[in-house]
């Protein structure tokens, strides 16, 4: 029997099977990881300069052309990356299907809220009067 005929007729008609997204999780985890290598180093150096700083210093920092771009990229990449990682952790250790699904949904929504808060905060500083 050929491989294509091992699927049920109904499944073939409905186009069921692979969601064509098999490597999406793996790929996005690597992409965000690679992006964060320079971004994390950049942020660590900048954060050292913000020790004991007041809000005015943050505004000056976020008024330079590329800083808010890097800050937003770091926030988005970090939270995307951690949502993929936490998803695997939940899948590995939570064995009840209901809890597993529920926790992943809550975690994902929480991540979206965090991204929203972070990006808006950086933009607020970038456009704040100096």
């Amino acid at each position: 029997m050929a491989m294509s005929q091992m699927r049920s007729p109904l499944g073939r008609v409905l186009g069921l099977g692979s969601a064509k997204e098999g490597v999406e999780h793996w790929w996005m985890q690597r992409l965000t990881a690679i992006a964060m290598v320079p971004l994390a180093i950049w942020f660590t150096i900048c954060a050292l300069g913000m020790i004991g700083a007041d809000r005015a210093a943050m505004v000056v920092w976020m008024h330079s052309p590329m800083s808010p771009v890097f800050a937003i990229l770091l926030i988005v990449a970090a939270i995307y990356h951690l949502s993929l990682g936490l998803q695997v952790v939940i899948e590995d250790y939570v064995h009840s299907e209901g809890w597993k699904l529920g926790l992943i949904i809550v975690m994902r929504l929480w991540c979206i809220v965090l991204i929203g808060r972070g990006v808006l905060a950086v933009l607020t500083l970038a456009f704040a009067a100096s």
Partner: protein
Amino acid sequence: MISDPRPLSPHLQIYRWQLTMTLSILHRITGVGLAVGAVLLVSWFGSAADGAVPFAKFQGFLGSPIGLVMLFGCSVALFYHLSNGIRHLVWDTGHGLDLKSVYVGGWTVLVATVALTVIVWGAGLSVWRH
């Protein structure tokens, strides 16, 4: 009675300790820790966007004993996860998967983590005092 004496996967309690197993679980533990660090990161930008007083309060919290412990934990976790993440990316290219390279890479990651922690906290504390 064992009818089919196939090899069994050993339990962790009787498995001989190896560096690689510790580094592996540390990658996951530091990853989950950095998820908390991401909340700290977003809160930091968020408080600055909220105003001078909320930001001063948050900076004060980061300088408090609890805040410093959190910052230290997050920075060590970042340096480890960053170094070991690069090790993972090298593996993804199909290189360094032989036993010797796995151990050389593992020790390199530990040395890099300690070195980065000492350099960044040395720089940070010298800035902070002034």
